[in-house]
């Protein structure tokens, strides 16, 4: 479980996060949603320790990260996997070398053992047999899956994904969402996804927080999204006129059904 308590973050005079309190639940896909500039990436980077909050606390299993020693920070980081928006695959390495990198760095496994683990990870993300290719030789969707494979190679307890669907077509985006969701269940990890993709919200949002201008304005799950009358949430979800029309129709239909049932 990851808990954030009154997190604030400023860059010079600009306050990006204005006191966020939220619990990212274990074994679930936790979503940070919001419009561009809402502070999602900053919050995610604070969670993984790439940014220090201006004030507030981050707790990993009820232990304040401020109290972690250097050794504990390294240990907790080895329990993290992260999928970056731009994948962050090392261009000069093959796919196999990319996935093997954490194993090379932190394990004393033999090359044969490491190759078996890499193959398993590649198989898990349905990319068997592309070991010798370079990141530039595969598609964006495949690169995302390689990124996921690399982030799970050390069997993490926490998985962080920064906009995993950006730049992908809707079908591939759904595949990636499903993969992340399946891996979360399979490894029983705490997954935190930063997204503004509505398909993701409705498909895999088990625990969602909505940020708006640096403030947490709504929390809930995918089933509560549609029925919510939170203005910020409806503005975010039904941003386009088409979706707004669709919502009005759905609400009209719901109301008429209620009337019929009364009769």
């Amino acid at each position: 479980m990851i808990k954030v308590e009154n997190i604030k973050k400023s860059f010079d005079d600009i306050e990006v996060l204005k006191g966020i309190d939220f619990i990212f639940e274990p074994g679930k896909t936790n979503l940070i949603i919001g419009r561009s500039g809402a502070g999602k990436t900053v919050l995610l980077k604070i969670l993984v320790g790439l940014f220090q909050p201006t004030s507030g606390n981050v707790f990993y299993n009820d232990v304040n990260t401020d109290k972690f020693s250097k050794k504990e920070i390294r240990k907790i980081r080895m329990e993290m996997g992260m999928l970056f928006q731009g994948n962050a695959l090392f261009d000069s390495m093959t796919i196999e070398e990319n996935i093997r990198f954490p194993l090379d760095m932190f394990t004393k496994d033999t090359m044969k053992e490491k190759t078996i683990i890499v193959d398993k990870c590649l198989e898990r993300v349905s990319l068997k047999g592309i070991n010798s290719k370079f990141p530039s030789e595969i598609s964006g969707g495949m690169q995302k899956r390689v990124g996921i494979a690399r982030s799970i190679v050390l069997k993490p307890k926490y998985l962080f994904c920064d906009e995993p669907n950006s730049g992908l077509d809707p079908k591939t985006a759904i595949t990636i969402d499903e993969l992340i969701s399946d891996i979360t269940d399979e490894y029983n990890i705490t997954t935190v996804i930063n997204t503004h993709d509505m398909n993701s919200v409705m498909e895999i949002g088990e625990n969602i927080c909505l940020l708006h201008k640096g403030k947490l304005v709504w929390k809930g799950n995918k089933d509560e999204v549609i029925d919510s009358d939170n203005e910020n949430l409806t503005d975010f979800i039904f941003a386009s006129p088409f979706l707004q029309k669709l919502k009005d129709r759905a609400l009209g239909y719901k109301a008429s059904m209620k009337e019929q049932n009364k009769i």
Partner: protein
Amino acid sequence: MEKNLLYHLGRYMNWHGQIYSRPENGRMYYKEIIRQLYDIGIGSLSIVLIISIFIGAVTAVQFFYQMDGTTIPPYFIGYIVRDMTIIELAPTFTCLVLAGKVGSNMASEIGGMRQKEHIDAMEIMGVNTAAYLVLPKIIASLLIIPILVSVSAIVSNAGGYMASVPTGLFTSGEYIRGLRAFFIPSHVTMMYVKSVVFAYIMTSVSCYQGYHVTGGSIELGKASTQAVVYSSILILIADYIIAVLLTG
């Protein structure tokens, strides 16, 4: 300006604490050192050879011109070329050229990794990125640059010979006699001291510029340029300090 200078100096010193920490996996560092030795050593050999030939050639021709008509014996030119190249020209010229070639490359490589979030990715894996990305480069530079400087010193003396003996400025015997005259072994020590100090300055300053780059491609270009400019200035300042200390 003053505040900025102190800020960077403080950050540069603090950053060294990160660089010199225990490696996560010695084998990975070893591999990286070998790669850097090849990149810096073999990758820079041709340019070092070319500049060294001309350093020796120009020194010989220039001194012949200066001494022409004086009573100084011609073999002195060999002696001057030898000492000039060993004490000053080989270490300083080589390291200034390497600051332009290798230093800017290091700054761009690390800066590019910062921009593509490779460094963030490694940090999240638990890798000490300052150590993993910088320490092998420093070790490789400290090992290979003194060798390149030695090659440069030898080739410069050969360059002096090639430019003056076949063109008839003086005889082969006179040049070789000069090369062997008044030899002081501590000059070679000075050459190695300079090459080690310059190698350290060039590598650490260039990596510092790349590691702390923020922004986009314009900032990366700036960092790469600053790596060359600051390394070159610091190399020349260090050159003066070493000259004062070792000849005083």
